[in-house]
């Protein structure tokens, strides 16, 4: 049986302490710049905050994984190298990387620190994963949320590293690390700047009939009726019109979150080493609720008990949850 480590999000020092106290085996976080894919306003850690956070986590036996999972544009690579050097000085337990140049630098400069391959690298086959293992010594791959459990089981048999899968949170649809949708509308890039639907370009408007519309850089993403639940103003969860869908429909995906709580035993059996909870942009309240629920569930499963996971639907986007691709190929 795998260790089934629980990998938890932390957008602020207080959220990190919350995740540690709620039973995280490891916490992932990033600096306050473009070196990570949640470069959101008011979020993330200064180097001093990171040092204090690592001390707190290590004191409680929790690991800290530093996300350096964006793609430096040419001319700016030093920022990523400096972030890696700072992480090494602080004593983080692993780097989560996507860019080959960044991976190569860390593998040569900080060979004693573990490298995890970010979902942003979009390695979805044994060959792609082995490429990163062979060349950069990657110890763990975070799999894209597009594979069924039988597919994960097969990949596990063919790769020399550990597998981490998302189990809860944002249900990413596009192949991560290959999405320029935000940059197309806003001029800020998910890959290069670490942003997705930046708040500075988001606008909500309430209408007289109680409906609310969301716009990104002036483009209407969705309009929620008075009784409809809402979602993030992300382009891939927007409502659009197409020639065959003149009334508008969710062309990519409706507002919905991933929740694999019922599939945990199968995922463990398939050889998944670590479970990742998405949501560095979420509050301490979310971190506390989700982490403690999954801590309980994983402990139950490991003790051979039936896991009785708390209802988390209230925390989900659109107040809806899905098992996405993990459950059935039909999702595709």
């Amino acid at each position, binding site marked *: 049986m795998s260790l089934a480590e629980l990998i938890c999000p932390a957008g602020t020092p207080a959220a990190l302490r919350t995740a540690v106290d709620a039973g995280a085996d490891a916490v992932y976080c990033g600096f306050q710049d473009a070196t990570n894919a949640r470069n959101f306003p008011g979020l993330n850690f200064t180097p001093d905050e990171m040092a204090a956070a690592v001390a707190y986590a290590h004191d409680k036996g929790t690991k800290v994984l530093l996300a350096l999972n964006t793609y430096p544009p040419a001319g700016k690579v030093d920022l990523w190298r400096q972030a890696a050097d700072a992480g090494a000085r602080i004593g983080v337990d692993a780097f989560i990387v996507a860019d080959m*140049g960044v991976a190569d630098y860390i593998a040569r400069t900080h060979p004693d620190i573990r490298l995890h391959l970010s979902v942003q690298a979009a390695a979805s*086959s044994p060959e792609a994963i*082995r490429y990163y293992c062979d060349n950069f010594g990657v110890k763990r791959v975070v799999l894209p949320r597009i594979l069924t459990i039988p597919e994960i089981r097969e990949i596990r048999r063919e790769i020399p590293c550990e597998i981490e899968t998302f189990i809860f949170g944002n249900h990413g649809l596009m192949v991560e690390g290959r999405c320029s949708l935000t940059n197309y509308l806003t001029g800020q890039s998910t890959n290069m700047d670490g942003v997705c639907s930046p708040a500075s370009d988001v606008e909500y408007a309430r209408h007289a009939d109680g409906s609310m519309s969301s716009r990104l850089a002036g483009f209407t993403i969705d309009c929620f009726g008075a009784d409809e639940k809402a979602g993030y103003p992300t382009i891939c969860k927007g409502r659009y019109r197409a020639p065959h869908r003149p009334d*508008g429909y969710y062309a990519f995906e409706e507002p919905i979150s991933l929740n694999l709580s019922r599939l945990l035993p199968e995922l463990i059996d398939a050889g998944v080493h670590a479970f990742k909870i998405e949501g560095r942009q979420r509050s301490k309240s979310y971190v506390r609720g989700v982490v403690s629920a999954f801590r309980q569930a994983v402990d139950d499963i490991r003790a051979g008990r039936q896991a009785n996971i708390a209802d988390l639907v209230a925390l989900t986007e659109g107040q809806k949850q899905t098992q996405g691709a993990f459950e059935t190929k039909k999702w595709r």
Partner: protein
Amino acid sequence: MTKLTLGPIAYHWPAEDRRDFYARIADEAPVDEVYLGEVICSKRAPFHEPDLPATIERLQRGGKTVIVSSLAEVMLKRERKATADLAALDAPEIEINNAAGLYARGRRPHRVGPFLNAYNEATIAWMASQGATHVCLPTELPGAAIATAAATARELGLGVEVQVFGRASLAVSARCYHARAHGRTKDNCQFVCEEDADGMPLRTTDDRPILRVNGIQTQSESYVDLLPETRRLIADGVTHLRLMPQAVDMVAVAGTVRDLLDDRLDPAGAEAALRRICDAVPFSNGFYHGQAGYRRIAAAAG
């Protein structure tokens, strides 16, 4: 000498249309290099792969260098096999679009495709050390970064390619959005993407054109048009300019860009000619200028 290239067809054009298209390209289009092969959806490959040898031969007879491109997304058995088979080719010129292809190719020479995220000099240097001979930069890379990346690539002896025409690839997914629009799943898509030779248009609910769906790919509504920036690109070290096939007269598009390269047209003249060929399609160059990709930034002097 700057080379003009024709990227792989992103859409599911019927086999006969493809044959006609490449016959015309071979005979009439002033492009130096042509990329072939299915990059977007592995389900489509059987429709046109049988024609591949004849197409290659036809294009070579027309004096074009032919490069076969690999799939952007590799997950299923058939996709892994297609990628491995391509990587096993003896041909010096294959373009790899997924790390699975890099793994299979080892250190033998290859080109790096636009889906491989060669964003910076460090990554390009790494790729060059592993046998890359040529790199196509990501479409969203701004001009200053293109210049820095191109400088490194040139020092290492690599060719440097930038897309200067056609819809930008904005995202790929495991899910097929063409099938979804028609209430189907990817496994049961019935190749409905064949209906949209230039992608399926999406408009916002207040009727503003925004994106194009091409199977698992999402593209820009606008055509990237870097004709006004072409001289700058070349001065910055870009060696290859890529035209993406759209449902317009691509021979005319290629002729226009060639006229610009050969100084038979000035940038304004080339721009006007391109506008006539593409009718009402919006043009954009925002990515190059570090602004919203859909935007059209007026050319600065020089």
